[in-house]
């Protein structure tokens, strides 16, 4: 992947009355990248996509595509594609007419349109359904038509607004893999919006986490998952424990001593600053915690009470309560301890403790 920026947002802000949808946002999307905006509803992620598309006007800031300022450029002249959550396939057109729409608007020769439609329907797995009425297709198939329609015009960017949000679980998983595959195959830059952390982690090259219009963290899925920067990001990924801790030393040489539920832990210092006695939050992933016999091999252990054991199929969640009342979850592939109410030891490696900024 070369590092040519294809989309740049510079200080983009947008408000709807008192609701902040985007607050002075800066970011760059690289050509060929699968870039995801992740956030809960109301985080402004869809609005941001609509601003890029030209369907909403930002109150302040610039959107650049291929370096060109898009201010005053209407959506139909931006050369983008967009896939909507509610599919938006034209119900009065056949599958082929839908896919051909952008090409017909661009007045391409008929033969070329026909060839391109066939190519794209093959790409999205709808070969042979050219003449079908779109309204009789399933949700997943309609979304494939919408995808083919958007890709037909070879957009500079393909914007996808929760495209799998209206589909049921099984189809959604299939489509995740398929979308990623299509993105790689066509080399199209995807800008994807979702509230589903798993979807974001599975497909994206980079993820920007949004919270009430603010970009909280923008990183690769691995970094975001292992090193969340704030409590909000940590809380967004399933299986991440957030604990209250107190600094017992000032950070020195990347190391810091933290007091967690009566235990001093030497953790890796982050950019968070403060002195002795400052209360901070730390994150530790449930699968990095050991319970039962496995805890004995860990370098740090804390005493806890087993509050619950939840069987989840591929793994088992052990819900634990620390001496100061804080709760956390330890995940392992099998049941480590059983008797609820028993005192157990939780062990972990200090390196897996991540200091959060707020």
């Amino acid at each position, binding site marked *: 992947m070369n590092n040519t920026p294809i989309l740049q947002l510079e200080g983009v802000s947008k408000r709807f009355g008192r609701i902040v949808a985007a607050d002075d946002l800066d970011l760059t999307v690289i050509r060929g990248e699968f870039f995801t905006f992740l956030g809960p509803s109301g985080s402004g992620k869809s609005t941001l996509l609509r601003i890029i598309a*030209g369907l909403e006007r930002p109150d302040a800031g610039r959107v650049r595509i291929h370096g060109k300022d898009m201010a005053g450029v*209407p959506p139909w002249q*931006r*050369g983008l*594609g967009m896939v909507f959550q509610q599919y*938006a396939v034209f*119900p009065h057109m056949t599958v082929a007419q839908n896919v051909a*729409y952008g090409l017909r608007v661009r007045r391409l020769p008929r033969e070329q349109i026909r060839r391109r439609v066939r190519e794209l329907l093959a790409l999205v797995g709808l070969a042979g359904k050219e003449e079908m009425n779109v309204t009789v297709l399933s949700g997943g198939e309609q979304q494939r038509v919408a995808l083919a329609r958007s890709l037909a015009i070879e957009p500079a960017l393909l914007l996808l607004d929760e495209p799998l949000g209206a589909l049921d679980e099984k189809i959604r998983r299939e489509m995740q893999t398929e979308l990623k595959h299509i993105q790689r195959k066509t080399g199209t830059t995807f800008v994807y919006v979702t509230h589903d952390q798993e979807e974001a982690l599975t497909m994206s090259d980079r993820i920007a986490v949004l919270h009430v219009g603010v970009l909280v963290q923008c990183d690769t899925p691995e970094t975001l998952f292992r090193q969340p920067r704030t409590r909000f990001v940590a809380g967004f990924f399933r299986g991440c424990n957030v604990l209250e801790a107190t600094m017992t030393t000032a950070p020195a040489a990347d190391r810091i001593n933290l007091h967690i539920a009566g235990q001093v832990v030497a953790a890796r210092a982050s950019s968070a600053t403060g002195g002795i006695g400052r209360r901070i939050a730390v994150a530790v992933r449930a699968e990095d915690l050991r319970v039962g016999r496995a805890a004995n091999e860990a370098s740090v252990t804390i005493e806890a009470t087993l509050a619950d054991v939840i069987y989840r199929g591929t793994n088992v969640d052990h819900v634990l309560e620390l001496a100061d009342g804080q709760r956390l979850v330890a995940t392992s592939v099998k049941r480590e301890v059983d008797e609820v109410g028993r005192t157990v030891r939780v062990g972990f490696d200090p390196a897996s403790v991540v200091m959060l900024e707020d």
Partner: protein
Amino acid sequence: MRGGRALGTLAWSYLALTLSFLYLPLFPPFVFSLALPAGEPGGLGLRAYLELWRNPVLTGAIQTSLLVGLLTSVLTPPLALLAAMSVRELRAPRAVLLLLLMPLFIPGISMGLADAFLFRLLGIPPSLLTILIVHLLWALPFAFLIILTAMAGFDPVYLEAAYLHGAGRLRAFFDVELPLIAPGISGAATFTFILSLNETVRTGLVQGPWNTVQTYVWSTYLQVGLSPTIYALMSLLIALTVILILVIRPLLTRRSQRTASV
């Protein structure tokens, strides 16, 4: 459950009663239209219907009615569509909506007199044009309401999809919105035609030398009173209205089916 069935029977009976109350007055004219003038032998006949076609005043009035009706139903829906689009585009407040619908509640005679007076002030003599304008004004709020309802069922995301695929506003409108709200527009056109065909009071005040079927019925009734010819004409007009309503109905149901499947 038995209580539910009793309630059902009661509801059906009430419905039957209401329907007969609504439609009962329409039957006598039909029955009497088949009666022959007193003193002639025989019972029933279609003579009254045949006589309609031998009356040049009436056939002229039918032509006028059809011409004005067609022109009104062609001209009104586009105007109503533009009004509905403006209301949506400007997110016009309810007050504006109410202003657009207000003429529906102004008494026909007041509206007709006001129109006639305005035409006189402007120096426009009573003619087909004045009849047409009055019908257009009468039908416009109805057509506006029907089209606005049809447009409310249209999801603007289709327009956004068209924009993103390179279509400008006009192109997107003709490619996507117009075909999807077309049933509402043809419904408005048919309804407008019925309204124009049946309008009497306002027409009577601006008709000049022209007669529509309705003004003919009205003036004949005033001058001659009821006759088999009038009964026959009334029956025909009622039948025509029923047929036109049946024409709109499938258009409306097809629309709602499509909305349901999306």
